């Protein structure tokens, strides 16, 4: 099992550092292109959600991300100190089939997280929000 923990700030440059770090791990840990794509997408959607809704756009808060390579899967844990918020409680947009003008594209990011990961979970512990995402290495 391999681990890597990074700490980013709640701003765009933090997300860029996160993406670069993931790209580096993908190479070091020899992760497939498809798994890398899925987990990068899920990770970006969760952290963007934390920044926009949890931290309400304030740029100086911390997000701690732990990448774990297990035998058959990649696990990513994302921890933030914002108020209690379960991103998976957000309603899946039911209007996916509706005409363009009637659509609300708000919950789209979380919808994609659910589609692109094998498992997703949320828990609240020690005043932190903890989201865990896993994807089989195939």
């Amino acid at each position: 099992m391999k681990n890597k923990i990074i700490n980013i700030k709640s701003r765009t440059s933090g997300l860029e550092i996160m993406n670069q770090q993931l790209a580096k791990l993908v190479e070091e840990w020899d992760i497939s292109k498809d798994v890398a794509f899925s987990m990068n997408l899920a990770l970006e959607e969760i952290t963007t959600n934390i920044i926009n809704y949890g931290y309400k756009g304030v740029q100086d808060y911390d997000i701690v991300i732990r990448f774990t390579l297990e035998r058959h899967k990649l696990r990513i844990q994302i921890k933030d100190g914002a108020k209690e918020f379960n991103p998976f409680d957000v309603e899946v947009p039911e209007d996916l089939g509706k005409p363009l003008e009637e659509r609300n594209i708000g919950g789209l990011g979380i919808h994609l997280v659910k589609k692109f990961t094998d498992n997703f979970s949320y828990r609240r512990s020690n005043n932190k929000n903890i989201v865990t995402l896993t994807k089989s290495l195939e």
Partner: protein
Amino acid sequence: MKITDIKTDNAIILEILGRIDAGSTETTEKYFNSLISVNDINIIVDCKDLDYINSSGLRIFIMSLKKQAAKGKKLLLCNLQKNIKEVFVFSGFSNLFDVDLDLEAANKLAS
């Protein structure tokens, strides 16, 4: 991420190279906004070298499609890589965009 564009008789053909991610959505959005505001023409986005997109990137395409539709013009995507295609399908946006076009088919639709 890098965007290049070529103007033909019937359309502007864009090529997006790289990733539309947290670091490049703002640039991409500005590019599309300014392109659409100064041109009144069909737009084809060749995605053969587009390796990644997130939901913010999807929103740029949706907003651009709305703006184009309001002018009676098209926004067509072509040569989508497998993962990008899945993002469109899972989002339910494959009924707004034909995700199976190649450049030749897109050109035909734009002419």
